[in-house]
């Protein structure tokens, strides 16, 4: 049974003329890692908001269709109930941190949920360890680096032990090194804890080889949904105004230049490319 079930979703923000999500069916099964991509304004954030229920509870508008997550009927359930199953993290770490120490920030959602203190202490410890922030526990979030701040934003969501993680461009305000550290951490965490992940990103290089699925959105509709190597089979997605990852791009250019027949499995990492070249029959 899928963890996330979006059926026939259409949504138009209050006061907006056009449909930001215009007929989307989207299913994710347990433990699956899904990368959502698409040009700016295509509706990625809107879809992710609909999964936690920010659409239609926080963002009002015209809503059709159904969204079920972990068996919960999202449009008819308050966000704070869905949020214990679906943890959401946004772009800007600055506006997601409210406390004056790292450990207090991790405990903040648990306090809001009225979790007993003894349980809270255990969870804070667990999350500090999982995110490698134990040393920073007494620090003021204001004094952390951008990457550490975003790691903390994720940590405080993990304290609620959600089954699904939804990240909306979690690295767009970070430098490339922090960005890849964060994404690697998230992928490793979701794999080892069997969590489901839905993440939207503009930087594809790192995630494309790591995820199970790529969902491409354009004008509020899904225009591709499948394994990443299939998406890059015929091109590199310029028609979606996606900045292509390097390896498939190089592969296609070389293939075009020397007139190669394209492989059925497009390489996504440097390693796969080397393997393909050295196998001698691309």
């Amino acid at each position, binding site marked *: 049974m899928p963890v996330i079930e979006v059926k026939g979703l259409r949504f138009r923000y209050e006061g907006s003329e056009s449909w930001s999500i215009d007929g989307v069916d989207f299913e994710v099964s347990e433990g699956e890692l899904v990368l959502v991509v698409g040009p700016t304004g295509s509706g990625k954030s809107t879809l992710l908001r609909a999964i*936690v229920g*920010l659409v239609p*509870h*926080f963002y009002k508008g015209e809503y059709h269709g159904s969204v079920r997550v972990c068996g919960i009927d999202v449009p008819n359930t308050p*966000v*704070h*109930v869905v*949020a*214990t199953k679906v*943890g*959401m993290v*946004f772009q*800007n770490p*600055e*506006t*997601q*941190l*409210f*406390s*004056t*120490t790292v*450990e*207090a920030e991790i*405990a*903040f*959602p*648990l*306090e*809001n*949920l*009225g*979790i*007993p*203190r003894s349980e*809270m*202490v255990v969870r*804070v410890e667990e999350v500090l360890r999982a995110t490698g922030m134990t040393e920073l526990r*007494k620090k*003021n*979030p*204001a004094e952390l680096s951008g990457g550490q701040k975003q790691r903390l934003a994720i940590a*405080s*969501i993990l304290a*609620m032990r959600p089954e699904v993680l939804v990240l909306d461009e979690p690295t767009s305000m970070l430098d490339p090194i922090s960005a890849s550290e964060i994404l690697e951490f998230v992928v490793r965490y979701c794999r080892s804890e069997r969590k489901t992940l839905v993440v939207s990103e503009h930087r594809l290089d790192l995630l494309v080889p790591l995820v199970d699925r790529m969902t491409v959105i354009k004008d509020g509709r899904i225009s591709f949904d499948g394994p990443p190597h299939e998406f890059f089979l015929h091109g590199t997605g310029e028609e979606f105004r996606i900045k292509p990852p390097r390896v498939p791009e190089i592969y296609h250019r070389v293939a075009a230049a020397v007139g190669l027949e394209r492989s059925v499995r497009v390489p996504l990492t440097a390693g796969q490319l080397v393997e393909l070249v050295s196998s001698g029959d691309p």
Partner: protein
Amino acid sequence: MAANIADLLRYREVESPLIRLDPRVKLLIAIYLFSTTLIFDRPFWLSILVSTAVLFTVWLTLLSIGASRRLLRTIRALSFFLAFVVLLNALGFVSQGLNPLTPEFVAITSSQLMRFIAAIVSFSFFLLTVSPEAFAATLRSLKLPYDYVFAMTAAIRFAPLFLEEIQEVIDSQRLRGVDYSTRNPIKRFRNYVRAFVPVVINALKRSFEMAEALEVKCYGAVRDRTSFYVLRAKGSDVGVLVASTAAFATLVTLRLLL
């Protein structure tokens, strides 16, 4: 200037017995110090003596955690009000047909200035020695509704960000040739307003993002919120509480006997 204020608001964790003292006890001591300066209102030499002692106490405590310079800045920030106290006093003298250019006026006014400074500064004993977390926990222990406590801690958390942003806008506009040191007050005011607009727009956008983040962090989900930081009085806290209460009681008795 904005950076200075931001610095004042940024609490730094230091290891010291004072920092570890229960914040409720610190609040109580601050109230004792405050009340002491208030009850010793005359004769002027005694009130100067008591105020100086209070100032000295606060200065010593702040010195022990390396925050004594903040005390000076607090006093400097008060200078406008101090001038106001002098002016009021002078007016009071004149209205009673007395000459303010006498030793008597100087004695009374300086004792009032000292009491005023000591009264305000006595709260630094609490404010500058508690972490924001301890501050929030104290407010909660006084049964203040959590929404207010949260608003206050969030303000402490976001004020430096806000001030930093103002500084950034001013700096970038200065690079574009906007003159913030102009003598013309109207021009100057207009320049500051112009710097303020992008900051306010950003703040609005930010408050929206914050509301969204609070929502997914389950803010307000249950009525019986629990807390991670709890205040637990130790033996030493009780000791300090008893000693300071005894000292205060002695001072009150002295004042009544005098």
